[in-house]
């Protein structure tokens, strides 16, 4: 279990300033709505923090509107990715506040999951947590918990309660002896590509810790072979960790609340333009 509580706390408190603006072509009223500003936690999901945005904007659109969705730079944003992942992937080093467009029409249902309620977010979050534990502990840690523990994880995240969340999450992060991680749950994102997810043991047959560099070469052999990995920034949680950091350590300290490491490859050309 991660012993460096300071790091966990620092990540938990990470926030991104966002400016929400209603899509110009969807404004139905004479009066133009003001942009809506929020400081949103990196670790949470948009539907958990945008109730107020909805109420502010909905007064200005056709009453016969559809589900609300968000877009940045013509890219519809998947609500089921943590906000920090969306920012690192699409907005990394873009100007702050991060300016997003709010839509109530033409929901892109071939790209975005519908989000009819917070239950959809809870269901998604818990299914990812379960998958992560299937990888780390063959599901034993999550299955040994009671329903109220599952609920505490979810409400801890939803209500921004660090201590409540970690009182349960520490069991999922147990990484010693028999409970040592079998595989590290990770996904690697690149713009316009399907996320990469593979089995990855954090320790090799000789007991040596494997590093982020090892992970990248196994997950993205093409980039490694062509020698073009250096064209990308490797970003997670808004930072660029050194490539020799052990993946087991990363999993314990830098995972999102869903217990996955979400790593973004951002083209250097792109982020500097």
């Amino acid at each position: 279990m991660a012993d460096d509580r300071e790091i966990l706390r620092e990540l938990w408190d990470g926030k991104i300033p966002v400016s929400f603006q209603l899509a110009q072509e969807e404004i139905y009223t004479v009066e133009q709505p003001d942009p809506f500003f929020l400081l949103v936690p990196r670790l949470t999901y948009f539907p958990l923090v945008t109730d107020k945005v909805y109420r502010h904007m909905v007064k200005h659109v056709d009453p016969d509107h559809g589900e609300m969705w968000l877009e940045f730079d013509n890219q519809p944003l998947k609500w089921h990715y943590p906000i920090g992942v969306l920012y690192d992937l699409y907005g990394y080093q873009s100007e702050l506040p991060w300016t997003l467009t709010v839509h109530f029409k033409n929901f892109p249902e071939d790209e975005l999951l519908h989000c009819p309620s917070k239950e959809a977010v809870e269901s998604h979050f818990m299914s990812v947590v379960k998958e992560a534990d299937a990888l780390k502990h063959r599901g034993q840690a999550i299955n040994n918990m009671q329903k109220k523990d599952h609920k505490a994880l979810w409400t801890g995240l939803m209500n921004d309660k660090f201590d409540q969340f970690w009182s349960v999450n520490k069991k999922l992060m147990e990484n010693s002896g028999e409970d040592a991680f079998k595989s590290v749950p990770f996904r690697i994102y690149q713009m316009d590509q399907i996320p990469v997810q593979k089995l990855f043991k954090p320790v090799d047959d000789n007991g040596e810790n494997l590093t982020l560099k090892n992970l990248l070469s196994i997950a993205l052999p093409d980039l490694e072979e062509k020698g073009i990995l250096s064209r990308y920034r490797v970003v997670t949680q808004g930072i660029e960790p050194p490539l020799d950091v052990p993946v087991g350590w990363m999993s314990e300290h830098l995972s999102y609340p869903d217990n996955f490491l979400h790593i973004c490859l951002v083209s250097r050309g792109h982020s500097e333009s």
Partner: protein
Amino acid sequence: MAAGSISRDEFQSLVKKFVDISNKIDDKWHLVTASSSTYMLKKMLATTVCCNRLENISNQMVSDMEIESLEDVSCMPDVSESKTLTYEYHVVYNESYAVPVLYFNIFTNDGRLLPLDEVWSQCPTHYQTHLKDNKWSTLTQQEHPLLGRPFLQLHPCHTADFMAQVISKSSQKINYLACWLSTVGPMVGLNIPSDYMCKD
């Protein structure tokens, strides 16, 4: 490999065999490769009577190749009461759980996705009690792992336990895929002919 789970290689050989049988009985499954993984796909049309559940449509299932002949079906209900839906099923290997997972989408005539609450309410009557309390942990929309698009997914976290029980109770070797699919498929309108159960 834990009891009830299968390796990726086993999955590959199981889907190949499954599609071989499908070809023989014209069941319309075929193999597709995306993001360097192989999965198994079937598309079909089904006419469903409004407000009725999926079990009522099994006799009227037609493949997408047979749209023309749809009107010939003598027991077609009145058009005003029925709608034709397109079902697309994908069987994909999940490495985290080491089991196959069923993804599917149901499209209406105008190419839109059938909303999740309608999909839930279409599940056959005997699944409704389970769904009432567990719908959000049983059947939801997820991102397809190979296509990156929204698909409905039957959650895989109990598949290995279930298959372990089936395997331990069976005296002879079973067809893993057929056995699993014939258990979970009917919940979402997918029926597996008994031809798949025969040994090769």
